Structure formats: C-alpha cells, structure tokens
C-alpha cells in the first residue's frame, strides 16, 4: 500500500466522518445535559435542505451553513418547548419531529431538487498541507474536515474543562441535586438542547454543501442521524470517544465503497445499508460489556476481565432508563 493511497484513504474517512462527528457531538452535549434529542435524523435532513436553499439564495455556502445551524436550533427549540416547558414525552416528541422534519424537508425542498448550487470548495493551506500523511488529508481538502476536528476539541474543552461544562454535566447527572445546588436546570437543559440541535443542523449543512452536495428526494444522508445517535452510546457520552466512533462508522462506509470495486457482484445498495447492522452489533457489544452479568462473568474468567470497561462510564444519570418509558 503506497503512501499516497493511505493518505487518500485517511482523507476519505475524515471527509465522510465530518458530518457524523458534528451530529454526534451535538447529541452528546444534549444528552450530557439530560435531554435525549431523537429528532436528530430529521434535523440533519431538514437542515441539509435549508442550508442548500440558503446557499443558493445568497450564493454563499457559508451563509447557507449558518442557516442550516439555525434551522437545527429551531427544531431543537420545538423539542425543548414540548419536552422541557410543556412536559411532554421527549421520546415521543423527538420521534414525531424526526418524521415530520423529513417530510417537511422533502416538501419544502421540492424546488431545490437536482439543482446546481454552491458548495464549500476545498482548502489549500500553505506549509500545513505539505505535512506527510495527514497534511493533505486535513489541510488540502474540504474545510469540513478541519471544522469537525476543531469542533471535537472545542466540545471536549467546553464539557470537560470549563465551569459551564461542569454545570452541564452536573445537571445531566443529577438534576435534583443540581436544583438543590441552585443551578438553573431547565435553562441549562434548554440551552444544551439548542446547542446540540445547532450542531446537528451544521451536520446537515455539511452534507448538502460538501459531503453529498445538492438536494434531492432522497438526498443521500437519510439515516445518518440515527447512526449519530448510536455513536453517542458507542462513545460512552465522551466527546473524543464519540468522535472516534464517528471515524469508525465513516471507515466502514469508505471500506464499502472501496470493496465495491473489488467485489462488483455485490450490489451497491447492500453497502449503503452496511452501517446499520454494524450499528446494532456495536450497540450489542458495548451494552453487553457494560452489563452487570458480564462484569460478574469477567470476575471468574481471567481473560474476560480485560474487556470490562475500566471507567464506570455509562449514560448520564438523568437519561438512565429514560428509553424504557413508553410515550
């Protein structure tokens, strides 16, 4: 395997991962504050449409991206009003929103379908892009890669190293204790929900303005939001691990495309759906590893002990068991 091929492979994985990283980071912030935003898949799709339409209207892809982020925050605001202020079931509202946003995106985007439009283009930073292996993969391609990597750092720093991030984690871990401590729980949750939605919206913009440019019915990013939701669980609600999870799923997609040339007998649709069984399998493995039964077994069988997660990890306290409730 030549160095050029390896660089191209890294570039392809980072490129495919960029929107997944943003969407999963957004959901991480939201769930860390104790709000499960199931509308993510619809948010990504609707924001993709809004971003593309706005980019065409203003002829500026960056304004389009901003519009996508705003659209994502708007949908999250609907969830926040219903779930946090009116006290409706977040799961039900989120799920309805995801279906609604998908249909709304196709309906409102009818005029944008298969139209040419601006995209985010490509970076070419001097010096940096000449670095071996990662230079061209990060600095001489679409700016979305750099954007997503910077976002990982920012979200990690915010959640883990700032006072505001500590408040967010406290609110999500033990809302009752946070109330007793005098923290504005609902306001924090609402703001995190908005921030998470905005990141999901940006992810949609990355799809329609760079990764899968353009709009159509289907657009091509359907299901990405669900993958991102699973990635958050897979990454144990930790920003850096979540980003690694996104890279893992992007690698599967890229491997599918690469394998298509090697094994032309298998149809392309099968590779498109490959991430979904992998999603189920990873959730199965991750959740079984965290289960009490597995810890119990690991105590008796020596080699299994290495597979037990070292940190307690797991879901933020406020959302433990939330998925087990009905509508």
């Amino acid at each position: 395997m030549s160095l050029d091929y390896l660089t191209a492979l890294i570039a392809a994985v980072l490129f495919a991962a960029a929107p997944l990283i943003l969407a999963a980071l957004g959901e991480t912030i939201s769930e860390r504050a104790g709000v499960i935003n199931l509308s993510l898949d619809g948010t990504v799709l609707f924001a993709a449409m809004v971003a593309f339409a706005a980019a065409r209207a203003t002829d500026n892809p960056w304004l389009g991206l901003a519009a996508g982020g705003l659209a994502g925050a708007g949908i999250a605001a609907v969830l926040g009003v219903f779930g946090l202020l009116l006290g409706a079931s977040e799961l039900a509202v989120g799920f309805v929103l995801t279906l609604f946003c998908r249909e709304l995106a196709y309906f409102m985007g009818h005029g944008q379908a298969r139209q040419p439009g601006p995209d985010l283009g490509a970076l070419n930073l001097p010096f940096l892009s000449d670095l071996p292996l990662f230079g061209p993969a990060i600095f001489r391609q679409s700016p979305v890669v750099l954007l997503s990597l910077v976002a990982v750092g920012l979200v990690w720093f915010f959640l883990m190293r700032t006072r505001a991030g500590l408040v967010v984690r406290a609110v999500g871990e033990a809302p009752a204790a946070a109330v007793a401590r005098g923290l504005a729980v609902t306001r924090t949750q609402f703001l995190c929900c908005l921030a998470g939605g905005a990141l999901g919206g940006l992810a949609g913009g990355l799809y329609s303005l760079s990764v899968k440019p353009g709009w159509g019915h289907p657009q091509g990013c359907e299901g990405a939001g669900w993958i991102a939701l699973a990635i958050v669980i897979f990454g144990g609600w930790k920003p850096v691990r979540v980003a690694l999870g996104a890279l893992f799923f992007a690698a599967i997609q890229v491997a599918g495309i690469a394998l298509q040339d090697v094994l032309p007998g298998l149809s392309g649709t099968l590779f498109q759906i490959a991430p979904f069984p992998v999603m189920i399998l990873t959730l199965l493995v991750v959740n079984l590893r965290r289960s009490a039964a597995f810890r119990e077994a690991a105590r008796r069988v020596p080699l299994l002990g290495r597979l037990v997660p070292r940190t307690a990890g797991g879901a933020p306290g406020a959302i433990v068991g939330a998925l087990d409730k009905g509508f």
Partner: protein
Amino acid sequence: MTGRTSSLARAGFSLALALCVTLAIVAAAGAPPLTTLAVMLDGGLGSGQAVLRTLSALVPLLLCGAALCVTFAANLWNIGVEGQITLGAVCCVWFLRDLGLAGLVPPFLAVPGALAASMVGGAAWALLSGVLRTHGRVHEIFSGLGLNFVAMGVSLWLILGPWKRPGMASMSGTEPLPAALWLPALGGRPMSLWGLILAVAAFVLVAWVLNRTFFGLTLSAVRQNAMAAERLGLRPKRRMLAAMALGGALAGLAGGVLVAGLYHRLIPSISGNYGYTAIMAVLLASGSLRFLPLACLFFAVLTVGSIQLPLALSLDSSLAGVVQGVLVLTLFAARRLWPAGNTGSTGGTRNRGSAA
C-alpha cells in the same frame, strides 16, 4: 362530562392549529394553500375510485396500528414495523413464487398459506429486535430502525438479484404473479375486500386480547411497572417477546396483503412508509383503540390524496407526512395545556425532580 368536553376542545384546538400551521407551510412553499388542501381531499375522497384507493391504504394502516397497540401496551417502541411489513411481503412472495407457482401446495391453500408465511416473516423480524432488547440490552428504537434499513436492502437484493425479471433486473419489481394467486379483488378494482375484512378482524382481535384477556392484563402490568411484574412472576421479558411477535405478525400480514391484494409482486420499498404513518396514527389516537380507526382513516385520506399533488400542482407528495406531524404535535401541545381530560393513557412525563 368535563372530560369529554375538554377532549373535544383539545381535538378542535389541535385541528384548527394544525390547519393554520399547514396552510402557512404550504404558502411558504409557494403554493396556493386552499387549492392544495382541496386537491388533497378530492384525491382521497372525491370519487369512487379515490375512496377505494383510500380503503386499500387503510388496510395496512389498520393492521400496523393494531400491531403498534400491542407493542405499546408492553411499553415497547416498535419502530421496526416498516421492516416487518417488508419481510412479510418478501415471505409472501417467496411462498407464492416458490411453492404456489411450482404447484407444491393445492391452489386453494396458496393465498392463505402465503399470508401465514408473511405473518411468520414479520414475527421473526420483530422477534429479532425483541431479543436484542430483552437479552442484548439494545433498545428497540435502534434495532428496529437498523433492521428497517436491512429489510429494505434484502428486498432490493431479491428484486435485483435472485428474483429479477427474466432478461433484465428492474426497479419496477419482480415478475407479476398470475391472477390465480391474488386475493380475490372487488369488482376488478385494485382493492381486495378480503384485506379490509382481515384488517378489521385483526383489529377486533387486538382489542379483545388487550382488554379482555389475562395476557392483555399482564402486558399492562409490564408496562406500568416491569420490576413489580418480574417480582410477581409475570416474566416481563417473555411477555415483551410475545407482544413483539404478535405485533410483528400483524405487520407482516400487512405486507402479505399488500403483495397478494394490491401489487401482486415484490416492489422496492413496498412498505410505503405505512409503518411510520401508523406510528403517527397511534400517537394521534394516544394509544386508544377507540380513536385509532378514525386516525388511520384520516391519515389514509391524506396519504392517498397527496399522491395527486405532484401531478396537479407539482408539489412533493410528502405534504401528507407534514400534515400528520403537525397534527400530532399540536395535539401533544393541547394535551399538555389542558391536561384535565383523562383518556386512559398517562403520557410519558418524566419526573424531572427525581433522577432514576
């Protein structure tokens, strides 16, 4: 009495608000709002043909709605209905193609056998996500959704691969089955009365199971407190799996009826969003079996009516889904703003003060 008035007031409020929001959305898309709604209603109810089309959309919606009532009764988010329909359709086509056409089963048994096969297929697909939930700790929202995509992939693979039309594979589906292997149609129209009869029977069966049997009672015990149900020896995991299997069988039957009664072949995305639409209908009826047929009928009118939109006004037919979403959301809001009327289902309010 106050309960009834407030539930009427809520329904009226949400309908009016949903109408306003829908009109605004249609206007924002640059279309004449009132004409658009008129085209939709006319397309769903305007003629005898339209009514028959609406009724044939009602059949899978009723079956899937009944399926979802069973799984919601056990507190399961059965998002995988879409995939269960697809698997039901696949099994139905398999039975009719490989056993019916080959003459391995007597002709009078071919269609009933195919419908039974579709129920087995749907139940197996649902059990897969049920087992992942009860024994693998994977939530059924994720497994159901993932399996929906997998089921779509399976049907596409069959259409383009092993079951392709002689000569060339085509996205228009597999070779149509001979008329001897169809559900008897109603006066030559693309609508089988048998489908409607089956759907109504299934619905009555589900209502009876949930309200009048011990199994229904245990499901409700599992829903309200799984831990207590476990202590009472009700084996919640087994009940959940049974609910998934029953729900999957009904959804699979919907797929079987779509094949044997409507399309007479396997087509890509045969599930036609009915699974998701049925979830919306069940949420609109807030899990009440009494209102569910009405919700299903309304959504069937919208779904069928919206098919006219691309031709008549060059709008996307997804407006039906938009209206459904708006309506469910406004009803959620109304139910939260006037919580007086108790419709039996206590919403999933999260007690924010006490973290689990």
